[in-house]
Structure formats: C-alpha cells, structure tokens
C-alpha cells in the first residue's frame, strides 16, 4: 500500500476511536435522560440515534492490525468485506424501517418484542461464530466465558421474544399453558446449558477445538429454554416478560463487548441491562407481583385458584347502549377507564368520538389511566394520544382516585383487575394490595365487557355485582360505537 495522506492516520488513532465512542456514550445517556419528559422525549430518542450512527461509523474506522500489532494503513476496518456490510444493511434497514412505520399502535408491544428478539439473535450468532473461528482456543477463558454467557442469554432472549410476539399477535394461543413441573424442566435445561458451557470453556482453554456439536447442542437447549420460559405466561403478563427479555439482550450485548474487548458494546449493553431490570421491576410492582412469580408461570397458578374469591354474591345487571347513552349525556363528569380490552378491540378512536359527543353536551370527560393499563405501562397513553385525546385529560391513578367520588358515571372499557375493589378490601384475594382505580366510589359505573367471565387472572370482580354498576356486554369497539350512535340521536 502506498503512503497515505497524513489525515488518515489521525482517523486510525486508537485515541480518536475511543474518543468518538465516548461521544457516542454521552449521547446515549443524554438521550435517555431526555426520555424522562414528554417534551424532551422525541429529541432524546433522536440524540440517542445520532450516538448510534457515531458508534457505527467509528467502528468502521477501526484499523486492522498486522501480525506485529501495528495498524495497517487504509480506510476503514482492516480486511472488512464491505459487500457483506452494505448488503446486510440494504436488507436489514428497510425491513426494520418499514415494519416500524407500518405497525399499528396497538401492536406496538409485539413489535418491540420482535426487534428485541433479533438483537438477542445477533449476539447468539456472534458467540457461535467466535467459537467457529477458534477464538475461544486462541484467547482462553477471558473470551470463552463472556461469549458463552452471551450465547445463552442471547439465544433465550431470541426464542423467548419470538414466542412473546406470536402470543401477542395471536398466532398462538395467548393463554398460559404449561405442563406440571415446568419449572423443574426449565431448571434442568438451564443446568444442562451451564454444564455444556462449562465443558466448552474448560476444553477450549486446554487448547482443544471442541466438537461443534456441543455449541449446536447449547443453542438448541437454550432455544428450548427460551420457548418454555415464555410459553406458560399469559398474554397480560407479556409486557413484563418483554421488558425482562429486553434487559437480557442488553446484558448479553455487554458480555459480548467484554469478549470482543469493545467498550461501546459494554457501555451501551450494560445501560440497557440496568435500565431494563429497573423497568421490569417497576412493571411487576405495579401489577402486585414479583418477577420470579411471573417467570415461574401463570399468574398465581395453583395458589390463586385455591384461595380465589369464593363466589361473589349478587347478580350482574345488564344494560343497553341507549340507556348508557342517556345516563352519560346527563352527567356532569364522566371518567373513562380504558383497559386491556380497549387495546385488544382497538377502540381508542371510537372512544375519542364518544368523548367528543359528550363534550358537546357540556359533560366533563377525563381518562383514568392505571399504570399497567393496556399491554404495557404507558401503552394506553400512546393509544389515546394516537386518537388525539388531549394530554391534560389523561389522569394518572394517584391524580384521579380522589375524583371518583365526584364522578357521575365511570365508563370501564375492557378493564377488569385494575378496578377490582377486592384489592383494597379482601385479604384472601390474590391481588390484595395491588393499587387500583377506585371506580366503585363513583355514583354509577358502566362496564363494557366481552362476556361474563372473570379477568385474565381468573378473579371475580365484586365491582360487576355492585348495585350501582350496569354491564354492557359485547365487543368494546362496537359497544362504544353503539353508544355514540345513540348519543347522536338523542
């Protein structure tokens, strides 16, 4: 190679590369802190994206080293095959872009699951390739242990996320399903995975290129583990699981960074690992359950069924769309309590229409948002914002709970457990202690519900049997549409 212009060597300087990485980290952290407020959030996300572009470009500047450890001059990452990178980006970027642009707001959680899954897949594949290239043997435990950790976690995250996607997309049954002793099977699979990894790490550190079947076996075992971990979990618990898998992928990225001695991967991966863990915990707390309990399969499982509400007294009073319309038309204040059912029925636009009809008649309309309403914390806000609901009408739980006593009609749309007064009163209830919306304090309540069954947790809701409550059965979207029609004809 001929002598290059002086400027090029500056680009190749490890200090330049490290410096640019530091700029990228600063942008990641600054961007994430921007996500703490609705006003700065858009900018924050874009700042983080700029950080990502810098990190990628910087990586492509890393020079290749010759056998003496000297940088080989030349533009970009040593012997890199640009065709592969460009080809992969040409395939991947439009796929990611188009699916992100097309996805419906209600399908957001499974989209995030899918994006998270492919990230985990990337990590697992890299760990596998590192083995195939003999890197474990060459560098010993320092590379083998973090790589194998990354492989296990990445693979579990990939398959787990895909199951989460399939469940939320209703490609497979969303109900909890599992066999007895599932937890022991999972524990056994985990032990097998750890055992295989330990053997691989030991054998390669002895200078042997272990048979590849061990790695393939490890990929299979961790894949099954990922499937088994998520399959027994019910659809409503999925947000917590996706968040957990998101944290997993972050951790696996950080481990891969240790193996590859790349600071960008370590820092970015670990920030995601830490933040994802906190987020997961906050979601679990809001649902009054623990992460281990969710991962152990199904909410409550046997214990909930045993201690479940022993048949709530009373009857449900059914109502009609026209009665509901009249009731709300003459109210002073209506609080809409949207839940999982609204997200499933994609009724947010119809609900917004309903609110407009009511506002025309001088009714004050507010929305009571439980922290875990929808399919993810904050998901309901996204759905309602999409339907142009003014931000100041969305009330958080603490804010609205004192307001229910002054509310004429509470309209509960596909929400169940988050309105269950048993959480406040019934110590034997599995959801006792969970923070709820005090809907039962309002003067009257209309509950839109698909059928007479209990919520996903299988817990009877005394609210439905309250004399002040009337039930409107049917699909949430068409029920709301019926009420709107009745209101227009009033």
């Amino acid at each position, binding site marked *: 190679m001929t002598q290059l212009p002086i400027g090029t060597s500056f680009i190749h300087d490890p200090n330049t590369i490290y410096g640019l990485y530091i700029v990228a980290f600063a942008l990641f*952290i600054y961007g994430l802190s921007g996500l703490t407020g609705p006003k700065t959030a858009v900018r924050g996300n874009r700042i983080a994206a700029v950080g990502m572009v810098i990190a990628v470009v910087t*990586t492509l500047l890393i020079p290749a080293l010759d056998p003496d450890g000297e940088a080989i001059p030349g533009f970009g990452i040593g012997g890199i*095959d640009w065709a592969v*990178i460009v080809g992969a980006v040409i395939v991947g970027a439009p796929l990611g872009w188009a699916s*992100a642009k097309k996805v419906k707001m209600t399908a*957001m959680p499974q989209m995030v699951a899918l994006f*998270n899954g492919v990230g985990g897949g990337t990590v697992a594949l890299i760990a596998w390739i590192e083995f195939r290239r003999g890197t474990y043997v060459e560098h010993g435990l320092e590379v083998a242990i973090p790589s194998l950790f990354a492989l296990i976690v990445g693979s579990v995250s990939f398959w787990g996320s895909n199951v989460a996607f399939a469940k939320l997309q209703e490609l497979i049954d969303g109900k909890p399903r599992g066999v007895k002793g599932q937890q022991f099977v999972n524990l056994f699979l985990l032990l097998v995975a750890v055992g295989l990894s330990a053997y691989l790490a030991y054998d390669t550190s002895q200078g042997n290129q272990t048979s590849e079947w061990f790695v393939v076996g490890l990929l299979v075992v961790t894949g099954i583990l990922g499937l088994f971990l998520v399959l027994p979990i019910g659809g409503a618990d999925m947000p917590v699981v996706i968040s957990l898998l998101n944290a997993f992928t*972050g951790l696996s990225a950080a481990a891969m960074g240790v193996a590859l001695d790349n600071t960008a991967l370590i820092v970015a*991966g670990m920030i995601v690992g830490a933040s994802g863990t906190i987020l997961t915990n906050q979601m679990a707390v809001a649902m009054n359950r623990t992460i281990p309990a969710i991962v152990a399969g199904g909410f409550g499982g046997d214990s909930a069924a045993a201690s479940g509400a022993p048949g709530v007294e009373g009857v449900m009073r059914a109502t009609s769309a026209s009665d509901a319309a009249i009731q709300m038309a003459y109210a002073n204040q209506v609080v809409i309590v949207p839940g999982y059912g609204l997200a499933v029925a994609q009724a947010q636009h119809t609900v917004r229409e309903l609110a407009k009809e009511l506002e025309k008649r001088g009714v004050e309309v507010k929305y009571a948002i439980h922290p875990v309403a929808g399919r993810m914390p904050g998901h309901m806000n996204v759905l309602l914002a999409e339907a*142009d609901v003014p931000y100041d009408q969305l009330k958080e739980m603490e804010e609205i709970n004192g307001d229910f006593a002054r509310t004429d009609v509470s309209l509960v749309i596909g929400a169940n457990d988050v309105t269950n007064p048993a959480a406040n009163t019934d110590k034997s209830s599995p959801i006792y202690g969970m923070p709820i919306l005090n809907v039962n304090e309002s003067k009257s309540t209309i509950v839109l519900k698909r059928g007479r069954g209990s919520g996903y947790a299988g817990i009877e809701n005394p609210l439905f049997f309250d004399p002040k409550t009337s039930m409107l059965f049917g699909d949430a979207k068409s029920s709301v549409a019926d009420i709107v029609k009745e209101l227009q004809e009033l």
Partner: protein
Amino acid sequence: MSLALVTAAAEGGASTLIQNIGILVLAGFVGYAVISKVPNTLHTPLMSGTNAIHGIVVLGGMIVLAETIREESVFNYVLLFIAIVFGTINVVGGFVVTDRMLEMFKSKPTPSKQGEEKSS
C-alpha cells in the same frame, strides 16, 4: 500474591478484562441513575428506546466480520450476514418505532386539522 498485584497495577498492567469489568459496573450504575426518573407514561417508549440502543450489537458483527476471511469459511460469512441483518433491524426499527410513539405525545398545534382527520 497481593504484592504482585500491586506491582502490576503500578506498572499500569491491570488487564483489559479487569478494566472492561470496571467499565461494565460503572455503566450499570449510570443506567440505573438515568432510568429511575422516568414517569410511567413513558415506560413503553423507554423500553423501545433502550431496545434500539442494545442494537449496538451490530458493531460486534462488524468487528468479527473484519477479522474473518471469506475463504476461511463460507458458513461463517452466512452467519455473520444474518447477524448484521438482525442487528440492523434492531437498531433501525427500534429507533423509528420509538420515534413514532413519542411523536404522539407532542401537542398538536392545529386543532382544525384534527377535526378533518376524525371525520374521515
């Protein structure tokens, strides 16, 4: 033993592994500090945003690719290609989808236009 460690440290000989673990631990605390202040409302966008950031694994694919020679193994090349495609989807999709979610929280300054959209 401890003397040897002290000597090694004095010579600036702390291994890269230890340095990297140090960075790992600090980054964990940074993640904790930044995130614990996010309001409930923004949890979904936040999850999506952090999801995009761990797409940084695509760098890992690039680094390994740079060290891999095509003749070495075509299969490795295929795996790397898939890995980088996956990583790219993670990054691009992650940031775009977060952006879409967050755009909705922006106040809409044209209420008249809102009405038109609704009536359609």
